[in-house]
């Protein structure tokens, strides 16, 4: 798109798929974090075809900003349609930023069982980590100014794109 400084999400997805291909076996569990991460996980699942169904996690009940910001308006149900215990898992998110969502996701995951391993895939890593968390699979690394946010969007045909949002002062 002319004038759009952000990379094409579909190209990032292709890059991510190729990075992950050697790491995803038939029993690997792909777990997307609502909402953008679920879209990415679905696409990864279609491309990498593990036998294990794709899972979705909503971390609203595990967030550390609940006391400050309240409950998210539109909480979704977490659905993990496989046994977590002893399995190799890959958490999938759209944008990796402070790492707090991933911390919440890890806590929630361990309420389901003790996985053999957990790795992290993100379509975009925008830096700004506040916790010791790193992704093993990354579509692209971007540098953004504070106050700038990127959001993943999905159109009616299922095509993914990135959108830049300036935070209101």
């Amino acid at each position, binding site marked *: 798109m002319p004038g759009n400084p952000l990379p094409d999400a579909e190209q990032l997805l292709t890059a991510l798929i190729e990075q992950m291909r050697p790491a995803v076996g038939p029993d690997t569990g792909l777990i997307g974090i609502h909402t953008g991460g679920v879209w990415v996980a679905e696409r990864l699942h279609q491309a990498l075809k593990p036998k294990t169904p794709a899972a979705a996690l909503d971390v609203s009940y595990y967030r550390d900003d*609940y006391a400050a910001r*309240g409950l998210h308006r539109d909480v979704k149900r977490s659905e993990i349609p496989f046994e977590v215990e002893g399995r190799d898992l890959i958490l999938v998110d759209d944008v990796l930023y402070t790492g707090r969502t991933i911390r919440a996701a890890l806590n929630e995951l361990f309420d389901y069982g003790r996985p053999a391993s957990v790795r992290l895939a993100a379509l975009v890593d925008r830096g700004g980590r506040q916790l010791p968390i790193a992704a093993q699979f990354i579509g692209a690394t971007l540098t953004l100014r504070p106050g700038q946010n990127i959001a993943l969007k999905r159109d009616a045909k299922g095509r993914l794109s990135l959108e830049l949002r300036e935070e209101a002062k």
Partner: protein
Amino acid sequence: MWLHPSNPQLDKKGQLHHLLTLEGLPAEILWQILDTAKTFVGTKVKKVPLLRGKSVFNVFFEPSTRTRTTFEIAAKRLSADVINLNVTVSSQSKGESLLDTVDNLSAMHADMFVVRHGESGAPHFIARHVAPDIHVINAGDGRHSHPTQGLLDMYTIRHYKKDFSNLRVAIVGDILHSRVARSQIHALATLGCPEIRVIGPKTLLPAHVEQLGVHVFHDMRQGLKDVDVVTMLRLQNERMQGALLPSAQEFYKYYGLTQDKLALAKPDAIVLHPGPMNRGVEIDSSVADGRQSVILPQVTFGIAVRMAVMSIMAGNK
């Protein structure tokens, strides 16, 4: 003034701060509670850490088993600490005033009060009095309101019927003494149910009940015709003064839900009852235990609905 000027349940931003009645609660908040409750139904993980470190005080000035227990389970599944106080048998009998009781409990660092009281309006009174960071949930006050029961009934109806916009709902029995009926009527109207019927003898219907927008029937057979949902109410012997009814047997004959009366409703109609049931008074055992009964799912959904109310409220400042 930190509360909403026109609705003492809402904060200045219009968010739920106390849950006192379903009357006047915006549809958006009702839907948010029902949607959030759905995330707690049938999940593999029963307990989430959301309310860790919060103290929920169940303060019951009137006896209750089911409601108190489901509130306790709901709070514990959100990781809150729960303190149960049965005030009927403690301070009040020693002469302590309602506000003194509440002040003392607040001094024990309560974050949330779940209040049941025999007097209508008692939870409102407490909500107006507590510190701004404390939340109050009405768990039933007199004949006035029982909002979480109304909400769990709405959850149950939505679960089985998907949508309110084409429903015919009948509420049967002792409407006069029923805080459940009032909560159901307000919630159904807000959620867009087009036809609400109340069925009962004249002596057990409030005067001018039509003004709530309901259709009144005294003949149960007429009233049940083609309804999608039948919600039965308990005959509240403990609240009756004087001769409102000739006898429980006669009530059963005219207003008890039996298989042959239920056959007048739609074939896929569901039967609700808030409990505790008087079998053979307002409902026949074969109906209570029958295939159209959703009375036990109501109890299960009640926990999820109470979890939803607590998680939404406790996050609103």
